[in-house]
């Protein structure tokens, strides 16, 4: 849409874009900003930390030491050592790589699937919608943890496949939301107008429906990311997630469980890492919702 610069000052027309005003609202929401910065910081140290530790500091990550077992936090080991004398902070950074990869990759993939399936079901309707809705209802009737448990027992996945499994579950709720929104949107007049102008169904879906469901998709992706980290850690705790010695926050806790009487730091730090990350994803998702959909702002 173009505006006549003479009749309307530029800054008003700039202010009126959805994403622009959402971003401005986000900048004023201090809690959401805090959550976003914590997430950014965690991602930063977990991505950059491991290569720095390995290549710059020349620390052998898997080096074990009988003498250094169960050391409490000290100057040398800021948050102590584990049952094999490995530095817990380094393990935490390495574990964070997997846990965060799960969050980012799985939630992005599941959002994409959810958006595609949701728009398809909502827009096309009819038998397609019935079938997809049936699949969604059925899959969401089986507790997610159980589905994951069975999948991991049958296929004993690596970290990459596990991410795919999680993505294969995460789309369900997103698709349900997107489907609902699509059904509302497709009866609106602008869609009718676009159809009258001769837009194909594909173009209607991509150009007219998709941009309008994107905000919901992004909000649910953020919240999903937190939920998937929790799910992955639960799975690891049951011994079915990514297998040691590859550390994840979940399997570090599982290992710590057998030795927690030797020092609470073994249990405390991986758990705090999970909680803080999940919390930040949830808070960030809430903040995004307020920013993108001011009508439903939390009070």
């Amino acid at each position, binding site marked *: 849409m173009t505006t006549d610069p003479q009749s309307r000052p530029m800054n008003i027309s700039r202010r009126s874009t959805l994403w622009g005003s959402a971003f401005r609202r986000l900048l004023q929401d201090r809690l959401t900003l805090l959550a976003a910065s914590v997430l950014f910081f965690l991602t930063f140290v977990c991505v950059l930390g491991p290569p720095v530790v390995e290549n710059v500091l020349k620390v052998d990550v898997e080096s074990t030491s009988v003498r250094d077992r169960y050391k409490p936090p000290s100057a040398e080991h800021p948050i102590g050592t584990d049952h094999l004398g490995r530095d817990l902070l380094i393990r935490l950074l390495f574990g964070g790589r997997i846990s965060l990869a799960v969050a980012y990759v799985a939630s992005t993939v599941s959002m994409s699937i959810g958006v595609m399936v949701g728009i398809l079901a909502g827009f096309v309707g009819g038998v397609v919608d019935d079938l997809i809705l049936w699949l969604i209802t059925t899959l969401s009737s089986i507790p997610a943890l159980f589905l994951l448990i069975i999948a991991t027992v049958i296929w004993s996945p690596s970290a990459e496949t596990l991410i795919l499994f999680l993505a294969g579950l995460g789309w369900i709720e997103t698709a349900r939301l997107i489907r609902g929104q699509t059904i509302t949107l497709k009866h609106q007049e602008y869609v009718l107008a676009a159809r009258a102008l001769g837009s194909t169904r594909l173009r209607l879906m991509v150009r007219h429906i998709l941009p309008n469901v994107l905000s919901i998709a992004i909000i649910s992706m953020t919240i999903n990311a937190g939920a998937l980290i929790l799910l992955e850690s639960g799975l690891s705790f049951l*011994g079915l997630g990514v297998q040691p010695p590859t550390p994840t926050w979940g399997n570090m806790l599982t290992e710590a469980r057998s030795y927690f009487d030797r020092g609470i730091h073994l*249990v405390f730090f991986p758990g705090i890492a999970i909680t803080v990350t999940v919390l930040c994803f949830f808070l960030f998702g809430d903040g995004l919702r307020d920013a993108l959909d001011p009508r439903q702002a939390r*009070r």
Partner: protein
Amino acid sequence: MTKHLIRRLLQAVPTLFGITVISFLLMQAAPGDPVSMLTFNPEVTAEGSARLRRQLGLDDPPLTQYLYWLVGNDWTQIDVDGDGSGDVQGVRKGLLRGDLGNSLVQKRPVLELITERIPATMQLMLSALLVGYSAGIVLGLIAAARHGSVIDQAIRFFSVVGTSLPGFWLGLLLIIIFSVQLKWLPLGGRQDLTDPDAGLALWDVASHMILPVSVLAMGIVASISRYVRAEALEIMGHDYIRTARAKGLNERSVFRSHVMRNALIPVATLLGPALGGLIGGSVITEQVFSWPGMGRMVITAISQRDFPLIMGTVLFSSVIFTLGVLLSDILYGLLDPRVRY
């Protein structure tokens, strides 16, 4: 209402059917059928295992296997020796008649094993539901009534953190604090209420429950309190609340008879999701606290690759879950007079 009830019940049928299809497909995907595990046994000949395969119906086409699994095969003759004519009467009764197969390890009917474990799991889940709902409602209402205060902030903070805590971690921390350090509560396990030796040791029963129930209830408290608070705040913005104030009701009565009663109705719809969280959560909680319920049985079954038992439990839980969602829908319709069908 009755019409709606019947329609809603019928809607659950395709879902239940879908659950059986997915369970069956997963079972088919599982590596190694019971017979192929026997091939390493030198006493089993190739001919013997072929006989066994035919007897168990493992060579039938998948659709036939699914049908037999669902409705049983006791109305057919099985061709055991492979000559084209039936020899033995089938024995399976099928899922629809409650036959979930036999556990590979314990050699007993899966349904029997599940029903043995149900009381323990139900004890945990229902207590958590009760505690979670009551605490969640109370906290949510307090937060709404003291909107904007420090208490409100604290409750909101608690409800966000509560949903972010991994249940097993909370469990471990509670064990470390209350069982290891303070030695107030047992590490885990369950004291059976019906155990004759326990006598009137009610504290013994309760003390084993406090920690697992708190862990399970945590998520429910968090989500319910958040929901109730939002709901109550929304209602407080309605015109009829202003009317109630204008006619001279004091704040307490306005809150009690106008805000609270309306805010609590939609809580019924959260029963479904809460149940889903509980079923998943109980697997982990039972593992943390060595609680002898269904969840712990599943984990043991997984380590033993006992697929019939795993699938049976999953099927059973999914059906319970579907019925729970159904119940919460119906309950909502009964509670809210605005919902008319």
